[in-house]
């Protein structure tokens, strides 16, 4: 199994798609941080005459201060995680569909399946290595948030006078961190398992990617149309889990129930993947 992990890691870190997946959130974080400068620039030059009321000017000054507050640690780190969280589903689907589907499109399964006898370990290894890469991506998003946070942090006081450094308040940092990291990783794990299953069924990167996107989109919205299913969707249970971790009192589904539901989703997807993959004939393309 260690050899499979080494092989998968070698393939993944030399694959351009993996680096694109990692760099997408980094680029988005940069855009967001530069965007904060733009927001303050737009609020800077409100004319100090009768065309704007003192309330408006105070509101804009408040906005600029809030933006400035967000350029300090740990908010910059959480912002980076948040950006990754925003695109986590898409990143997971792209990465896993490429990792599994690439073996079909390049017709390389026949090369590696004849070197190691236990087929299910190939899938488990891909899941493990893929999840590690996604974890690194999440971390990269957080670190990018911190690094790029220095740009507005240093620039904003030059643009707008009167901005003050916020008082340190890290009381709920751990809760927010848990709320950002744990559900994100769990959703990535579930989406990864679903993507693997659908890519194996379609035997294609594009097929796996497209069908998983359609499925997860439909699944996320089915609660709107069928109320009875509202508490059983992945998104509802992930939201509940986040609420429990942030301890914000908004959770509508018990913690144990949401955990069990998410576990079942992952187990079913992984079970189908392994069952089909072990039985499949690799009869070529």
């Amino acid at each position, binding site marked *: 199994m260690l050899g499979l992990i*080494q092989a998968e890691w*070698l*393939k993944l870190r030399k694959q351009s798609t993996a680096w694109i997946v990692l760099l997408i959130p980094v680029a988005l974080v940069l855009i967001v941080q530069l965007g904060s400068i733009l927001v303050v620039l737009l609020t800077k030059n409100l004319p100090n005459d009768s065309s704007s009321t003192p309330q408006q000017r105070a509101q804009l000054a408040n906005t600029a201060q809030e933006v400035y507050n967000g350029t300090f640690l740990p908010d910059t780190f959480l912002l980076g995680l948040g950006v990754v969280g925003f695109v986590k589903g898409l990143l997971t689907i792209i990465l896993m569909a490429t990792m599994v589907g690439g073996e079909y499109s390049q017709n390389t399964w026949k090369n*590696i*399946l*004849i070197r190691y*006898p236990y087929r299910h370990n190939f899938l488990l290894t891909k899941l493990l290595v893929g999840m590690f890469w996604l974890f690194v991506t999440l971390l990269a998003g957080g670190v990018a948030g911190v690094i790029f946070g220095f740009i507005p942090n240093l620039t904003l006081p030059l643009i707008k006078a009167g901005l003050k450094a916020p008082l340190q308040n890290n009381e709920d940092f751990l809760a927010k961190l848990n709320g950002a990291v744990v559900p994100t990783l769990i959703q990535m794990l579930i989406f990864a398992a679903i993507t693997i299953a659908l890519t194996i069924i379609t035997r294609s990167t594009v097929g796996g990617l497209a069908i998983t996107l359609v499925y997860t989109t439909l699944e996320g919205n089915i609660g709107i149309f069928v109320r009875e299913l509202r508490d059983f969707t992945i998104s509802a249970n992930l939201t509940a889990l986040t609420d429990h971790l942030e301890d914000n009192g908004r959770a509508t589904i018990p913690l144990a129930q949401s955990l069990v539901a998410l576990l079942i989703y992952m187990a079913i997807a992984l079970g189908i993947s392994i069952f089909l993959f072990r*039985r499949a004939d690799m*009869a*070529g393309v």
Partner: protein
Amino acid sequence: MTTNLTEQAPSTQVPAIELRGLTKTYGQYNAVNNLNLVVPQGAVLGFLGPNGAGKTTLIRMLLGLVHPTKGEGRILGYDIQTQKDKILPLIGAVVETPTFYSYLSGYDNLKVIAYTGGIAESRIQEVLDIVQMTPRAKEKMRTYSLGMRQRLGIASCLLSNPRIIFLDEPSNGLDPQGTIDVRNMVMRLGQMGHTVFLTSHLLHEIEQTCNYVAIIKRGTMVVEGYVKDLLERSGHQIMIETQRSDLTAHAVNQVFGQIARPLDPYRTEVTIPREQIPNVVKTLVDREIALYSVMSRTSSLEQYFIEVTADSANPFDKQAQLAQVSALQAVG
């Protein structure tokens, strides 16, 4: 814990490959039908059959890529369905055209295979040297020619120093030099003591590299045996160039039966056991027929192949194919 290798290593007495009624069915179609075959260890087996005969399906079944519908297959005594963990370390294979990860170098591709098979990385350089790929090993796969891919495929086979090597059409798409390189490599593998299971469309290649041959048609075994035996069974062909082919054919047919036919005014085709060739020459010399040359027709396996694989329901096709082969040989 130590491993008792003498208990685990397969006996040298068991066949390299043994098939009993092996069958693979896709819906109504029998890709491989009730195949029986015994390949002794150390044999270099040429596995022949027309396109769609089931050669690649059989290789895929032996390698565990495709599940048999029924029947039994054993490699070095181990069951192909239940003992893959014992079989895979003992075999190496290239199935159809070798495929690798295009974004990796040749070296990294071998690294992936070595890691997957639990093989020491130091072995990679050894096999690269064997297939003479060391100078280009660090370049990306996408820059490799088909010949280089084939050589890298053979290198990947050799990584585990396997007892049995499966090569599926290794000369496919290669230029003449590439074909010769691969042929020499296969011959070397045989000399090194590997059992080689080789499929090819190039029958003269099989004739030159293999000592054992099996021919299948529509998934069913037609014939198997040592190449030498099969060729003797089908007779050896020679082409004799004399002053007059009609006199030559007449003289030979008078002494040996109806085995000669004129191809043109000077050349005569004779099908005869190899050991009888000196007697044919002596007959012509005795009758004072001016003899210019005697040439062996090297692709008699090709004729034999067509004889046994041509559709018996359509003898016209068979005759046409044989005539075509003869014509090509005459030109050659």
